[in-house]
């Protein structure tokens, strides 16, 4: 069974530029999550989708971050404009339902200069 796929794996941008990350969850998983993991910290949930609807985006900085899961399968997370403090690993995870085990992708490492 294929795991959670993420791309790109690495991205370096200048501050004030925009960037987008893509996630393809495990087939059949209804719940999709985006986490931000700053160096030296544990992952922090940014947004949770159930199919194509948003369940929780309370920790998403909505002035610069946006995410969508239009067809209830893959998802994109966008940052516009990026700030230095956005440098982090962005992890996507999926689960069969919101109470089931979450499976994480390898993450996208973002460096904002």
């Amino acid at each position: 069974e294929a795991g959670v796929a993420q791309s790109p794996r690495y991205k370096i941008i200048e501050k004030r530029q925009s960037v987008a990350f893509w996630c393809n969850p495990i087939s059949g998983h209804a719940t999709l999550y985006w986490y931000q993991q700053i160096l030296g910290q544990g992952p922090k949930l940014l947004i949770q989708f159930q199919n194509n609807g948003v369940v929780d985006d309370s920790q998403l900085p909505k002035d610069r971050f946006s995410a969508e899961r239009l067809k209830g399968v893959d998802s994109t997370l966008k940052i516009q404009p990026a700030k230095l403090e956005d440098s982090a690993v962005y992890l996507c995870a999926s689960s069969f339902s919101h109470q089931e085990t979450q499976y994480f992708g390898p993450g996208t490492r973002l460096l904002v200069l």
Partner: protein
Amino acid sequence: TQLLEQSPQFLSIQEGENLTVYCNSSSVFSSLQWYRQEPGEGPVLLVTVVTGGEVKKLKRLTFQFGDARKDSSLHITAAQTGDTGLYLCAVRIGGKLIFGQGTELSVKP
């Protein structure tokens, strides 16, 4: 203030040594999870503990949930280089997973 405090933050040991890492809180939880995150990868669930005082073993790893369900420990016997990684504890709050800051373990040959 972190909901889950993990200690130590960093640990560097030689292969074959034993170690224990801790996950502490002042809150009571219905369950607690441990994950391992290898360099360049996402976290992988190792175990979920549910009952106060519960002990679970996974090969050389022993997990314990505190009697009051406020804390947990992970003990590794005879560490191997393959145990290197970030060990994270996490709890579910309102359907959301909340992680500690992790213990970075380096096992040297």
